[in-house]
């Protein structure tokens, strides 16, 4: 793979982005994991498009598995990005989760927006975070905060990945 040579500022910026997104995923996962009454059921059942799909995954027989998978997913993506291990896998997992969140309540014109802290039209924070994960996927810099360096130090030293 040909990787462009980045300036130190560009590299640190990308690492910072990875850490912040990882931080966010991890914290969301932990808060849910430690709150036994949390469930994604109402979020899924109130989906504004693809209703039959979201109602299907929110069925009583499935919802606890879905909730557990969501928590595990959030935590796994968070760990991956924050400590820098299997970052590209983490990015793909994170993008998939965000895609599901986005599709359940997309900020499309004419669809009910529900309670949000801002104003959105097509683009919302889920989509922006998805884009951030795409950037990280393309530049998974682990020279800093990258535990994978323990195993791939030489490569890391030479091209900052």
């Amino acid at each position, binding site marked *: 793979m040909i990787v462009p040579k980045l300036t130190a500022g560009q590299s640190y910026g990308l690492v910072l982005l990875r*850490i912040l997104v*990882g*931080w966010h995923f*991890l*914290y969301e*996962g*932990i*808060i849910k*994991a*430690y*709150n*036994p009454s949390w*469930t994604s*059921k*109402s979020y899924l*059942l*109130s989906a504004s498009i693809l209703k039959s799909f979201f*109602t299907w995954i929110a069925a009583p027989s499935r919802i606890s598995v879905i909730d557990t998978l969501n928590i595990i997913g959030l935590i796994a993506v*968070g*760990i991956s990005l*924050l*400590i*820098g291990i299997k970052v590209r896998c983490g990015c793909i997992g994170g993008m998939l989760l965000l895609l599901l969140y986005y599709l359940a309540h997309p900020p499309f014109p004419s669809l009910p927006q529900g309670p949000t802290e801002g104003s959105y039209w097509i683009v919302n924070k889920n989509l922006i975070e998805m884009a951030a994960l795409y950037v990280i996927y393309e530049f998974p810099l682990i*020279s*800093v*905060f*990258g*535990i994978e*360096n*323990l195993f791939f*130090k030489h490569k890391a030293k030479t091209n900052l990945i």
Partner: protein
Amino acid sequence: MANDNNFFRKWNRRDILKTLGGIPLFGAVWYSGASLAGDAKREKQFLLETLNIKASPPPASGPMSGKPVRLGIIGFGIRGEQLCRALGFATTAWIKEKQDLLVQNPKDTSLAEYKAQENLNIKLVAICDVFDTHAQKALDSFNRGDNKIKRFRTHTELINSGEVDAIVIATPDHWHAPMAIEALNAGVHVYVEKPMTHNISETYTLRETVHKNPKTIFAVGHQHRQTQSFLTAQDIIAKNILGHVSLVETNTNRNDDNGAWQYEIADTANPQTIDWDQFLGNAPKEAFNLEHFFRWRKWWAYGSGLSGDLMTHDFDRINCILKMGIPNSVTASGGIYTHHDGRNVPDVIQVNMEYPDFSTGSSQVAGKEKGMTFIYSATLGNQFDRGTVLMGHDGSMELGNRISVYADPGSTKYADLIKEGRIEAGVPIYQYDPAVNGTDAVTSATSKYFANKGLLWTYRDGKRVDSTFLHLREWLSCIRNGGTPSCSIKEGFEEAISAHMGGLSYKLGRRIDWDRSTERIIAKPGEDLDAVLLANK
């Protein structure tokens, strides 16, 4: 191993810090999330234990086994149809309508819920309705393999036919008491819609009749007594969570034709298909009038206005929680401000009921707090949902199918917890929602109004159940297994007298007092309160 040592020798301190720098961040985020969630959980647990509110459902009514109860329905209009449906008898037209709706909206659960309803082991054997179309609808729908139904021209014939064990009365208000009294005297069990009576004198007669016939089971159709949230609310009051309640606010807010009693007039209605004299009964003589027949709630001669028709719901909702009974006095005012369509009952009303000696309990020094006002405020010209609130010194309770309890910033009971920051004003200290995560399809603005009050359905084991079904089941259980319905003559008497005091105050424009020792509404010398109440003005 040698290779490993070689590998680590290439690392300097800076490399190690850079490589493992994410670990402490990871630890910090995890610890912070876990401790925050743990604190929140402990605080929640602490509050729940402190409040100790039991949100348990009422005990189920008894078995429906034995011989089928033979039922007669008198009045098969809007409410009559709903009651029959709750009894397991939906019209073919309703089933067709719901099947069509299901095609448009596969999520609509009304038909599935109806079909899943328990069989109450009854036969709907008799129908009496003065409008041929209504009666025929029942005959067409309920003459089926397992059930044979017969039409009776008058309620007297139906009651005395020897073919019914019990009747359900869903007629205009002015027929409630006369029919109930006749049935009870004939040994026929009675379920009567609200308001229990249309005037004051028949309220006493009905009470005497019920007492004289202890073996016949009498129930008033205030189905919300089956709503799970109201039982939870009773526990909240019993545990003095709110402290002394000085004000209760209830209301009606509707803004549609159906909600303003502008019901549809059937094409088939004419003097040949309607027994007009029987409809009038004891009401003042009036020429045949379709508007009066179909929209009877708009006239005092047949209906009871907002104070009898709708306030009774709210009065009984609160009375089943607080058991405050008949007020010492009532003042009411209002007018016809939205629907100048010939009606003579008000479409805006405010009723204030005073209970100067009543208390729900206190957290302050003994004797400091006493007395309560119950407010009913209604308009048929706006549907902004104001909710029902019970306002105590220590907390407020918002009441509907859901319950939210808020601590009051000036509370004595929670002062320390508020000071310590463990209770925040504006954040409920307790919430109860039996439908949490559920998706309920509510079909019209008026349905939503009733649903929010807990009048349409309640929940058992997380499943939505028609509260009218549970209320009728309770009555049938009392018929079969003994016992007294939760809304019987005592509760009905309190509801009826309080409503009549509201109607009188509105009409007379003055305070109406209740003499608790003689159990009479105080009239001025020579004043005929029933004549005032029933007058079509």
